[in-house]
């Protein structure tokens, strides 16, 4: 489904702030893979997602998605293949627009937009049904401004929007990091439910090792712009947080895991 070959990226090359974020990254995803990505700060987790989404462009290497080389496609063009949920709940939705207007925007992802009405009646009925599946009571608030929703509600809505038109790949960039633990759990459960129901291929960056083990069929650990640990299937199910910490320390040459990961 997704093939990343030999990806390199350096930020601020030639300055004292030079930072090699991706260092020959290789990654291959099968259809319906649900992969969690962990790693310390600056390991390049978010950068990988941003490269796939087209926010940044690689210095070298290529990205192919479903047989299409998307390495050089502008962000808005490749968006038709991708669903994205950001860390910041404010980023995924338009605050001053209504819930149904936001959904209607997402419903037209990958479609040429013209001068027909931005939202139609049958669509609205469909949105009510979809919002019911979130179980957040949003189905009665179709014309509420999204800015009035809580962070968790907005994130759930973004999740729904990003999967409204089945994406070839769903990118989740620490999408529960800004939520309180209870809401985070709810959004994660929802994420899994949606991914399973639609057999989506997904990449989920997280700081939470427990979540990384609990969700998905494959786990990847990144360090200094490379994948240092890749585990899937039965082996992944048996993983413990302590195993991951050990792996991390070994791979990073004894460097201690940062405190956010331990606390998680």
């Amino acid at each position, binding site marked *: 489904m997704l093939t990343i070959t030999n990806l390199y990226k350096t930020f601020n090359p030639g300055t004292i702030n030079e930072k090699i974020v991706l260092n020959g990254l290789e990654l291959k995803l099968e259809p319906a893979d649900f992969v969690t990505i962990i790693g310390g700060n600056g390991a390049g987790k978010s950068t990988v997602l941003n490269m796939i989404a087209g926010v940044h462009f690689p210095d070298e290497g290529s990205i192919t998605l479903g047989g299409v080389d998307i390495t050089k496609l502008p962000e808005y063009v490749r*968006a038709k293949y991708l669903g994205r949920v950001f860390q910041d709940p404010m980023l995924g939705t338009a605050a001053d627009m209504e819930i149904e207007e936001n959904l209607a925007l997402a419903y037209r992802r990958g479609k040429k937009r*013209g001068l027909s009405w931005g939202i139609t009646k049958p669509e609205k009925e469909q949105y009510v049904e979809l919002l019911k599946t979130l179980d957040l009571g949003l189905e009665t608030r179709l014309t509420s401004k999204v800015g009035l929703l809580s962070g968790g509600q907005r994130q759930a809505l973004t999740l729904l929007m990003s999967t409204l038109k089945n994406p070839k790949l769903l990118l989740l960039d620490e999408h529960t990091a800004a939520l309180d633990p209870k809401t985070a759990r709810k959004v994660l459960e929802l994420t899994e439910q949606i991914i399973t129901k639609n057999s989506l291929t997904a990449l989920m960056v997280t700081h939470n090792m427990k979540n990384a083990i609990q969700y998905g069929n494959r786990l990847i650990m990144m360090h200094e712009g490379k994948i240092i640990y890749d585990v899937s299937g039965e082996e992944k199910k048996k993983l413990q947080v302590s195993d991951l910490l050990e792996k991390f320390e070994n791979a990073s040459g004894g460097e201690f895991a940062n405190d956010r990961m331990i606390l998680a």
Partner: protein
Amino acid sequence: MIIKIATALLLAGVGAVWQGLFWAILAIGVYISFRILDFADMTSEGSFALGGCVSATVIVSWGWNPFLSLLIAVIAGMLSGVVTGLLHTKLKIPAILSGILSMIALYSINLRIMGQANTSLLGEKTVISEIKGLLPAAKDMGIKDSSLQTMVCIGLGLVFALLVIVLLYWFFGTEIGCVLRATGNNEAMVRAQGANTDLMKILGLAIGNGLIGLSGGLVTQSYGYADVTIGVGAIVIGLASIVIGEVVFRKRRSFARKLAAIVCGSVIYRIIIAFVYQLGLNTNDLKLLTAVLVAVALSVPVLKKQKVKVRREV
């Protein structure tokens, strides 16, 4: 004293209404860039004058139909918006500076178009004279010619304002219109949903400045002369109309009503200006007054918030 104020109000009111209606289209144009796109677009200063200069020139030099001249004014305004949009999106020049560059360039362009700093439309055909020509003479209706002139202006102003509101209401309800609104709200989201935000910004600026050009053309024709400096302060005048409309007609949620509130805001602004003139304000102080008005109106929400905070802390 009361009689003096009442007379002042009445005198102020009549002329202010039609002026307010013509200037309202400028305010709506500013609303599109400033509020919808979240882009403080200084191009308005130049595109307003441009609309007037182009309109006057094609009427006087080429003898074109005044209504057609308004269409040319719209197209010219749209082009200036496109230039600002390209400077900002393709060349990555900051929004404010892109607008200022266009504004400054337009000053020279406007002088080039007219070949002089101002053009009189005295004795020329204007949209007002054309409409008046269709009606019976003022004498036959038993009213003064100036009254008929005012009535025609108000009628034209209403028709154009209504037309603009209807068109924009339709447009911002379409798929492209929705994307345009979202672009001013959250660019990252719009790109993630597969729309070209650069194109949307250029389109928004084109529409905004097209309307501003139209307003410039209408104001010029109703004043009877075009002047390269007519656009000075246009963006602030537009903002003043917007904030007055928002303050007077609070809680207007539907888009069409918001636009209608701006039109009313523009008329109220003109009434205020005419009123303070009647009370003896020096013409030279007008821009200062407008700037203070806008600064106060824009700071009200901020000050309100701070007041609430202070109360909580106490």
